C-alpha cells in the first residue's frame, strides 16, 4: 500500500515535472517587470543576504534598482558572512553589499585566492562599542566613563558571571577586542558569550524596560536605537595603531568604513550591474529609514526599498551608470 502511495506521488511528480520545467525557466527568460527601458537579457545578479536588517536594507535597495532600472534578474540568497565569501569561489554569490572589516577574509580571498575584489565604500559608518540602558546613565552619571566601571561592577553581576560584573557579548562572527580590553584596562568584568544578536537585543530591551543593569557589546547603525534608549561607555580614545596588536588593545573601536565586496568574476563581467554596485553610496540615516520600515512598520524588503527609491530620486540617479 505504501508502494502504491509512493508510486502515486512519483507519477504526479513526473507528470507535473514536465509542466514544472516551464514554471522554473520562465522568470529568467521573460523580460523583468517594470523596466526603465532596459534590455531583457541583462542577466542575473546574486546579492548575498547576511542576517541583519541594515544589510537587508542596502541589499534590497540595490536589488530594486538593478531590477527596475537596469532590467537584471536578482537573486538574494540568505547566507552567513563566512559562507558568502566562499560563495564567490563557487559562483553562488556575486555581491556582499555591506562588509564590516574582516581583514582576515580580505587577506585570504582578495590577496591570496584572488576570488574577490573591493568595490568601494557604502558610505555607512559602523560604530562598535559598549552600551548600557539609559536609565543607568541617568541614575549614575559617572558610570559612562570606563574608569568608573569597576566601582559599579557589583551591579552587573549575574548568575553567569561568577562573582564579577558581566559584559554581554553577541554572535561570535563579530569583530571583538573584549578580552584584551578587560585585561588591559584591569576591569573586574567577565565576558558572557550571548552567542547571537537576538540575545543582545532581548537583553537590552529588558534592561531598559525592567530597569535592570546590563553592560553589553553593540553597534550602530542598528534599528534598536530607534526603539530603546542606550548610552555608550567612553573607552580610551582610538588612535592610529593602538589596536595593531590584538593582545595589547586598550582603546576604543575605530569608526569603521563599511564597504562592498564583489566576486572577481562579477567585477570582470558584471557590466552595468557592477558599476551600479560600485556607485552605491548612502548615509546611515538613509539605511536606518529603510531598516526601520522593515522592522517596525511591517514592510517587506522590496516595499521598503520602493518607498525609499520613490522619495530619493536624486540620490539614486547618481548611481545609475550612463
Amino acid at each position, binding site marked *: 500500500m505504501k508502494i502504491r502511495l509512493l508510486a*502515486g506521488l512519483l507519477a504526479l511528480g513526473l507528470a507535473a515535472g514536465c509542466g514544472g520545467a516551464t514554471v522554473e525557466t520562465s522568470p529568467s527568460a521573460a523580460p523583468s517587470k517594470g523596466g526603465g527601458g532596459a534590455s531583457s537579457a541583462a542577466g542575473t545578479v546574486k546579492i548575498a543576504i547576511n542576517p541583519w536588517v541594515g544589510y537587508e536594507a542596502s541589499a534590497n535597495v540595490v536589488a530594486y534598482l538593478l531590477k527596475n532600472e537596469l532590467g537584471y534578474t536578482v537573486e538574494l540568497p*540568505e547566507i552567513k*558572512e563566512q*559562507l558568502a565569501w566562499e560563495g564567490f569561489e563557487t559562483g553562488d554569490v556575486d555581491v556582499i553589499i555591506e562588509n564590516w572589516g574582516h581583514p582576515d577574509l580580505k587577506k585570504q580571498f582578495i590577496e591570496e585566492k584572488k576570488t574577490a575584489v573591493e568595490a568601494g565604500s557604502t558610505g555607512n559608518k559602523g560604530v562598535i562599542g559598549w552600551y548600557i540602558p539609559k536609565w543607568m546613565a541617568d541614575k549614575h552619571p559617572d558610570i559612562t566613563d570606563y574608569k568608573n566601571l569597576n566601582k559599579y561592577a557589583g551591579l552587573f553581576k549575574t*548568575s553567569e558571571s561568577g562573582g564579577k560584573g558581566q559584559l554581554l557579548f553577541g554572535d561570535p562572527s563579530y569583530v571583538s577586542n573584549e578580552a584584551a580590553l578587560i585585561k588591559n584596562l584591569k576591569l573586574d568584568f567577565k565576558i558572557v558569550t550571548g*552567542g547571537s544578536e537576538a540575545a543582545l537585543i532581548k537583553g537590552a530591551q529588558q534592561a531598559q524596560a525592567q530597569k535592570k543593569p546590563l553592560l553589553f557589546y553593540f553597534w550602530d547603525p542598528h534599528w534598536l536605537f530607534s526603539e530603546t534608549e542606550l548610552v555608550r561607555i567612553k573607552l580610551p580614545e582610538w588612535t592610529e595603531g593602538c589596536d595593531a596588536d590584538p593582545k595589547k588593545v586598550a582603546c576604543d573601536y575605530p569608526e569603521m568604513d563599511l564597504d562592498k565586496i564583489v566576486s572577481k568574476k562579477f567585477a570582470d563581467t558584471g557590466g552595468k550591474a557592477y558599476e551600479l554596485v560600485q556607485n552605491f553610496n548612502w548615509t546611515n540615516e538613509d539605511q536606518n529609514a529603510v531598516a526601520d520600515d522593515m522592522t517596525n512598520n511591517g514592510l517587506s524588503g522590496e516595499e521598503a526599498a520602493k518607498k525609499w527609491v520613490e522619495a530619493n530620486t536624486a540620490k539614486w540617479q547618481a548611481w545609475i551608470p550612463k
Partner: protein
Amino acid sequence: MSSTTISASAGIRVPRWAAPAVISVLFVVTYLAFRGTGTLPHDSEAPQFAAVTELREWIDDHRNDNPLFLYFLNYIRLFVGGVFTLFQSALLALGWPGLIGVMGGLAWLAGGWRVALLAVAGTASFGVLGLWESSVDTLALVTAAVLLSLAIGVPIGVWAGLSRRVRRMITPVLDVMQIMPTFAYLAPLALFFHIGAPAGTIATMIYAIPPAIRITALAIEQVSPTAVEASASLGATRAQTLFKVYLPLARSTMALAVNQTIMMALSMVVIANLISAPGLGSDIIRGLSRAQVGIMLPAGVAVVVMAVMLDRMMVSVARRDPHARIGRPGLLAAALLAGAGLVLTRILPPEWPESLTVNLVSEVNDVVLWAETHWYDVTTFVKDTTSTVLLNPLESLFTSAPWWLVAAAVLLVAWRVSGVRPALTALGCLLAIALLGTWEHSMRTLTTVAVAVLVTLAIGLALGVAAARWTRFSAVQRPLLDAAQTMPAFVYLLPALALFGTTRFTAIFASVIFAVPPVVRLVEDGIRSVPATVVEAAASAGSTPGQLLRKVQLPMARRAILLAANQGIVMTLAMVVVGALVGAGALGYDVVLGFSQRTDFGMGFVAGVATVLLGVMLDRITQGADNRRPSPQRRKAP
C-alpha cells in the same frame, strides 16, 4: 559527580555498601586535596585546533585537483537537487487549490476521511498564514529528504536489526551523524555541495537518516524469535521470512521510524536556511533578526502543521492491515477531491488570495511583550535559584576536579553500571577529549547536558507512563509533543531570552522542550508493547496498578526505556549549539565560532568532535544496565 554518583549506587546495593562508601570517601578526600590542579584550562590557540584548520585549508586548495572526488560529489548534488526540483515544480505546478485537493486525496487513500480533512485544513493553513510559497518550498525539501532518508535508512536498519555485528559497526557512525553539530561541518559542506536546496537537503538527510536506521533495527530486533523459528521450521526462505514475518510484525515500531525521520527533517528547516535552502527557515531568521515573535510564530506553526500532517499520513499507511484493500468509495472520494482541486486551479487566481490570509504579527508581538514584562520577576527567581543551587556548584566541581580524578570516576561508574567494555570506551572518549584540548569546555557542557538530560528523563518517563495508561491523555498529548519537537527553537527562545536572560538556564529550557517528545514516545511504545497476557496475569495475581507498573511493565519495557534515555541524551546534545546561541557557551559556542570565523574552523570542528565523544561516553555509561542481565531474546539474536 564522583562522590554523588558513587554513593547513589551504594544506596541501591545495600549489602555490599562498604566498598563503594570507602571509594566515595576516597574520591572526596582526593578531590579536596587536589582541587584546582590538573584542570587542563582552555587554550583557543591549541596546536590541535590549528592543525585541523590547516587541513581544511589544504582540502580547500586541492579539492579541484581530484576529479573523481569532485565528480562523485557533484553527481550526488545533481541527483539530490533533481529530486528536490522534481517535487518543488510538481507542487508549484499543481497550484494552491490543486495541492490542497491532491494532499486531501492522498490522505484519504492513506487513512480515510479524517486524515483527508486534516490534510485539506493543514495545507490550506499555509495560505491562511500568508506563507504559501515558503511552505511549498519546505514541503518539497522535506519530502525529498525524508523519502531519500527512508530509501537509505530502512534497508540498512533491517540489516542492522538482523545482524548484531552490522549494528555494532554502524552505531558509532550514527552517533557521529546525529550528535556532531551541523554547524561544525556546514561550511565545508557548502564548499562541496554549494549553497541552496541540494546542500540543504543533504544536510537534512545527514540528520534524518540515523533515527530511520536505529528505530527500524529496534523494530526488527523486537520481532518475537518464536515467530521467526516457526516460519523457518515451515521451510520459509530468508526473503520470505523477512517480508512475511519480520516486516509485518515490525510495522508499528517502524511507523515510529517514519515519524521520527519526518520530525528530524523538519527540525533542520532553520539550519538548512543558513546555507540558503529556500523555505520557512527564511521567515524564522527574518523574525529573529527583527526580534519579533510575531513574524516567526506563523512560520513555526506552519512547520508544526506540516509535521503533523505528513506524520499522520505516513503512519496511517504504515499501520494499516497490509491485506486490507481500499474500498471503491474511498478511491472515488480521493479521486474526486484531487480532481476538484485540479479543476479549481484552472479557475481560481494562481496566487493565494490576500483576503484569505490572517495577519497577526502585531497581536502576537503584544502578547509576547505582555508576558515578557509581567513574568520577569518570577522567571528570574527560578533561573537564579537553579543556577545557584544546581548549575554553579556542579560546574565548579567538574571544572576544578583534576582530569585524572574525573576519568577515574567515569571508569568506575561505567564499570559498575555497564561492565568492562563500555567502561573502557567511556574512558577512551574522555581521554580523547583531554587530548583534543577541549577539556574545560567539555566539562562545562557536561554540566548543562547532565542537568538537561536528568530533567528530560524525569519529565519524559512521567508523561510516557501516563500516556501508556490513559489513551485519552496520549491523544491530547500527541499534537503537543509534535509541536514541541518540530517548532523551531528560536520561536520560543526569544521570549525565553527575555524572561531567563542570556544564561545556561535558557539553553537547558530549550533542550528539554526539544528532547522530551522522543523520550515520551519511546517509553509509551515500550510499555504498550508489553504483552497483554502478561499484564492480565499480573493483574489477576492481585497486583495494584502501581505494582504492575514497577514490577511488570517498566522492567519489561527496559529496552525501549534505555533507547529513550539514549535518544534523550542524543537530542540534548543536538541542542548544544542552539544553547550556545542563547548563553550556554562552552563547546557549542566554539562550534558556532568555528562556523563564523574561518581562522577558528579547527576549534569549532574539534569542539564538534568533543560533543560526539561526550555523547558516546554518556551513552556507554548508561546503556550497559541492560548488558548485565542478558535477556533470552538477545542470546537468540540471529
